Structure formats: structure tokens, C-alpha cells
């Protein structure tokens, strides 16, 4: 099978699975609904049914999809950036930095909402970006810039932020529920305003990443070679780092830390459709969104009480990851 038909097949199958996921999200939940209810929604809108299917289930499914897509795109960018399949939003400290911001906001009682973010969400977003800028600035010292330094600085800064987060949560033992939300993620309180907050940024980053994909391909040959071939390496690197940080911080701000999506999904998509970044970026986004959509379906339907989604992504993602690694060898 040629690569081209492989890609077409990937897109067809992924889109189908994705649409099926949305349909299932609309039909399943603690309140029993049937396909007939869905049809009736357009003819004779019962306010209760409408609120449940449109305001609660659809907004939640769209948000889960967007967050999954943002995390997978962020991971795909970082793996190209570091030329390392181990990279994900955790290694540059974005996720840990964002959750620290959220927990600080909660500890200070900062609840006010702005531009679709809750107070903690806004601080999560800002502190995620701050940590990455800090990490970048630190690794720029002495004129030189080395990818390895950035990676290690990010890991150290992330560990520090995680320690502070755990300390704050430990000091406020009454905020167990908050701790679970920020450390394991959830879409329990998803709403349209969150979708509106994250969607434009996500679309902008997706378009920009596809536009710059050729430069990312050149980076794989090494910075000197890419420079020699006419790619503005420094600017490209800055743009990609900023985009990946923005995407991950947005994701954490609306749904807490959700691990493994940014690591597994781009990796998996690369095995299926090859390493070229122009097709890889949108494909990773679609696959990541679909993956998280199904994880959220499990999170809210597996048990009578909702599970934090981070448990599902890791429990489903890790064995799958091991399988892929094993098969590849």
C-alpha cells in the first residue's frame, strides 16, 4: 500500500471513529436518552432535553475533543522540536507550571472569571506560559542555545512547580476535590464559554504549524543544515515553542493536567502516516481529539461516579504505547 492511500485511509477511518464518538457522547450519560430523543431535538425542543444534550453533553464532547487535539498537537510540535519522541508538554514544564498557577489561585481564593477562564484557569494559563519563557531564558545563557539544556531546564523547573503544587494542596487538606481536578483532569464542568476560549487559539496554532511544517522537517536534519538550506532556525524554533506552550497551557487551564495524550498520540500517528510534519500536525490533532473524546466517554460512563480522565488516558495509553514500541522492534 502506498503512503498516499495509507494517509487517505487514516483520515477516513479517523473521521469515522471521531464522528461515532461524538454521536455516542450525545446519546450516553446518567440520564437515559435514545436516538429518537436526538431527532426530536430539532422538531420539538423540550428545554430539559435540550439543556442535557446541547448544553451539557455536546459542549463537553467538543471541549474534550479540542483539549485532546491541542495536547496532541503540542506534543507533535515538541517531539519535532527536540528531535526526540520522548518529548511532551510535561518536559518543558508547561503542564506543571499551569497546574501550580491554578492551585495558587485556589489557595488565594481568586475566583473571578475573565474571557471565558475561571480565576484558576486564567492563572494556570499565565503561569504555564511564564514557566516556559523562564525555562527558555535560562537555557539561553552565555549566548549559546542548546536543545539539551532546554530539555533539562524544563524538567527541573517542572519538578519544582510540581513540588510547590503538592505542598499547597497538602497544606489545604480540605481541597481534595480541587487537587484531583488539577492533577488528574476532568471535563465535568465543561461549558460553551470554555470552548469559545480555546477554539480560536487552537485553530490559529494548527494553521500556523501546518504553514511552518516544512521548516520543522528541515530541523530534523540538524540546525546547521536547516540554516544552510535557508530556514530561519532561531525564529522557527521560537514560534514552535510558543505555540506548544500556548496549546498546553490552554488545555490545562480548562481541564487540569491530562497526561499521556501529548506523548502517545503523535508517536502513534507518526508510525501510521510517516514523519512528514505537514500531514502529521493535523492528523495528530484529529487523533488526539478523538482519543480524548473516547477517554471522556469512559470517564463518565464506566462507574456511577465520574472518574478523573487522567486515570483513563494513562490506563489506556500506557499499555497501547508499550504494544506499539514492542511491535516496532
Amino acid at each position, binding site marked *: 500500500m502506498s503512503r498516499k492511500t495509507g494517509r487517505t485511509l487514516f483520515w477516513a477511518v479517523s473521521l469515522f471513529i471521531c464522528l461515532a464518538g461524538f454521536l455516542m457522547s450525545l446519546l450516553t450519560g446518567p*440520564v437515559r436518552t435514545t436516538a429518537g430523543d436526538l431527532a426530536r431535538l430539532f422538531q420539538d425542543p423540550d428545554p430539559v432535553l435540550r439543556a442535557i444534550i446541547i*448544553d*451539557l453533553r455536546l459542549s463537553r464532547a467538543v471541549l474534550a475533543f479540542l483539549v485532546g487535539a491541542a495536547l496532541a498537537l503540542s506534543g507533535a510540535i515538541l517531539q519535532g522540536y527536540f528531535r526526540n519522541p520522548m518529548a511532551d508538554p510535561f518536559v518543558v514544564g508547561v503542564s506543571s507550571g499551569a497546574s501550580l498557577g491554578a492551585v495558587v489561585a485556589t489557595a488565594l481564593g481568586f475566583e473571578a472569571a475573565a474571557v471565558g477562564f475561571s480565576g484558576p484557569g486564567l492563572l494556570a494559563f499565565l503561569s504555564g506560559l511564564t514557566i516556559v519563557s523562564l525555562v527558555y531564558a535560562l537555557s539561553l545563557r552565555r549566548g549559546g542555545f542548546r536543545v539539551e539544556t532546554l530539555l533539562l531546564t524544563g524538567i527541573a523547573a517542572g519538578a519544582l512547580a510540581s513540588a510547590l503544587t503538592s505542598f499547597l494542596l497538602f497544606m489545604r487538606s480540605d481541597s481534595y476535590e480541587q487537587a484531583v481536578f488539577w492533577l488528574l483532569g476532568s471535563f465535568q464542568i465543561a461549558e460553551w464559554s470554555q470552548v469559545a476560549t480555546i477554539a480560536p487559539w487552537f485553530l490559529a496554532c494548527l494553521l500556523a504549524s501546518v504553514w511552518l511544517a516544512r521548516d520543522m522537517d528541515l530541523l530534523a536534519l540538524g540546525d546547521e543544515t536547516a540554516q544552510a538550506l535557508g530556514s530561519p532556525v532561531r525564529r522557527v524554533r521560537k514560534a514552535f515553542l510558543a505555540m506548544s506552550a500556548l496549546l498546553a497551557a490552554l488545555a490545562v487551564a480548562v481541564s487540569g493536567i491530562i497526561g499521556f495524550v501529548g506523548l502517545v498520540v503523535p508517536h502513534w500517528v507518526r508510525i501510521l502516516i510517516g514523519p512528514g510534519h505537514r500531514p502529521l500536525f493535523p492528523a495528530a490533532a484529529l487523533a488526539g481529539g478523538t482519543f480524548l473524546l473516547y477517554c471522556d466517554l469512559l470517564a463518565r460512563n464506566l462507574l456511577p*461516579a465520574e472518574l478523573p480522565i487522567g486515570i483513563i488516558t494513562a490506563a489506556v495509553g500506557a499499555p497501547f504505547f508499550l504494544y506499539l514500541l514492542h511491535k516496532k522492534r
Partner: protein
Amino acid sequence: MRRAAPQPPLPALLVLAVIAAALPAASQVIPDDLGRPFPLPRATPERIVSMAPNITEILFALGLGGRIAGVTRFCDWPPEAKALPKIGGLVDANVEVIRSLDPDLVIAFRGNPLRLVGRVRKLGLPVFVLDIGGDLDALAPLIERIGRITRTESRAAGLVAATRTRLAAVEAALRGARSRPKVFVLLYGQGLWTCGGESYVDDLIARAGGVNAAAAMPKKWVLYKRERIIKDNPDVVFILARSPGDFASARDRLARMPGLDRVAALRTGRVYELDENAASRFGPRLVEVLERAASLLHPELSGGRT
């Protein structure tokens, strides 16, 4: 405040009634415990969702059991509450289930996650959030406010009056008490959790004629240290238990801890059970817990019990 005003003449009342009917509930707005304005309904709501066990208990005490559409899975008192539809737990109530019950009043409490309560409000449902008081005096305003938002003000006033009478009776009975035994309260569960000075249980112990050993702790709930109990040397230990078996195993656990055998309460056997279910909910049954605690702390005055 309106009700306290002197009686206006009848025609004026009629005019007011006409205006009130024309301007639906415009003037009847009260703030909830988050400070958010809440327009009072004109009539008693028909489908109430309660997000906490003490609220469920008060609703039943106000005769509103038949109008409750949903409760949490922890709402088990009165026993009829167990048969009602469940919305989930305190921190994991399900928004979709709440919406499906189509409530005309949702009563939440401060222990529900704010994000969750906010999500319910954003669906356009009327939500009233109540705090838990720091002492038993806060029971009366809590009941009165639930009475106001459910338009059962007179029943609430009756319940508050009955509660106050019983509180006063305990106070009167203890007037002759000469001692104030030191009390250690062991909360339900693993570990030496007790109530600090900011908890309503601390107030309950004081009203029962005792002194809470952990009163100096500026917290609601405190994880205590074994050596502190030995140093405090309480005269009485109250164990919040769900069953006699729970009580016996918690008592044995305490007795087996090295050094605790020297504590006065364990030496003299003054280790008593309190009903965890009633004591851990900030509702009307706290008065029963208080009466029992008072008679256990001051058996010499037990004739004064009402």
C-alpha cells in the same frame, strides 16, 4: 424585616398586594451565603434538589419531604430520604442528573465545589448556597433561610422556636453544675481526628457543660497527636460512631495505644458513644446530641433533662 413592621391599614395592604402581583418578586431578593442575589419564589417550590444531608434533613423537618426531587447519596435521614432519586455525592454531584430532575430550587452548601455549583447555576437553575455555622446559634438562621426560600416561613419559625426552647432547657439544667469535665472528641474514621475551636462541635461540648480538649486549635477539624491526649488527660472521651460495633472497636483502639491507659477517661471508663450520623450534620438533630452529651457529662443533673 418587612414582617416586623407595624400593621398597615387594610386598603394599603390591598394596594401593596396588587403592586406585588404586578411586579413579580421585584422587591423579594435575598442574598445567599456567597452574597449572590436570589429572587424569592412566590410559592413553595415543587421540585427541590438538595445537595447536602443537613439540608435534606431540614427540608423534611419543614414538611417538604414530598417536594424533594433529588438528594445526595449521603442523605439517609430521615429514612424516607433514602428512597429519593440520587444526584451523586457532595463533591461529585452529576450536573446532568440535576438538570434532568428539572428542579425549581437547588439548595447547595459551601462544601460543594464552587465550580460545580456555578455550572448548575449557568444552566439557568435557581441555586441558593448555604454555609455551615461555627456554633449552634447558627442553626436558627440556617433553618429560617431555608424557610424563606421555600416559602415555609411559619413552619421554620416553629422549628426554630422548638430548637431554642430545648437549647435553653439544657442551659437551665446545667446552671447547677459545679464541674466542667475536659472532653476529647474522636471523630469517625481512621486516625485521631478531633474538632478544633472553630467547629460547631466545640460549641456543642461547651453547651453540654464540658471543655473541648482541642479548643485552642484554631481550626475546624484537627488531626491530633497521641502525646497531646496524654498531656490533656481528658475526663471524658466521646466517640462519634455509626454503630455499637464501630464504637467498641474505636474504644479498643484507643485503649490499646501505649500511654493512653493512664488517661482519666479510660481509667474511669468514661468513654461514650455519640451518634455520628446526627452529630456530623449541621441540622436539628444536633440538639438531641447536645442533650445526650450534657446528660453524660453531668449525670448528677440528669433530672433536668427535658
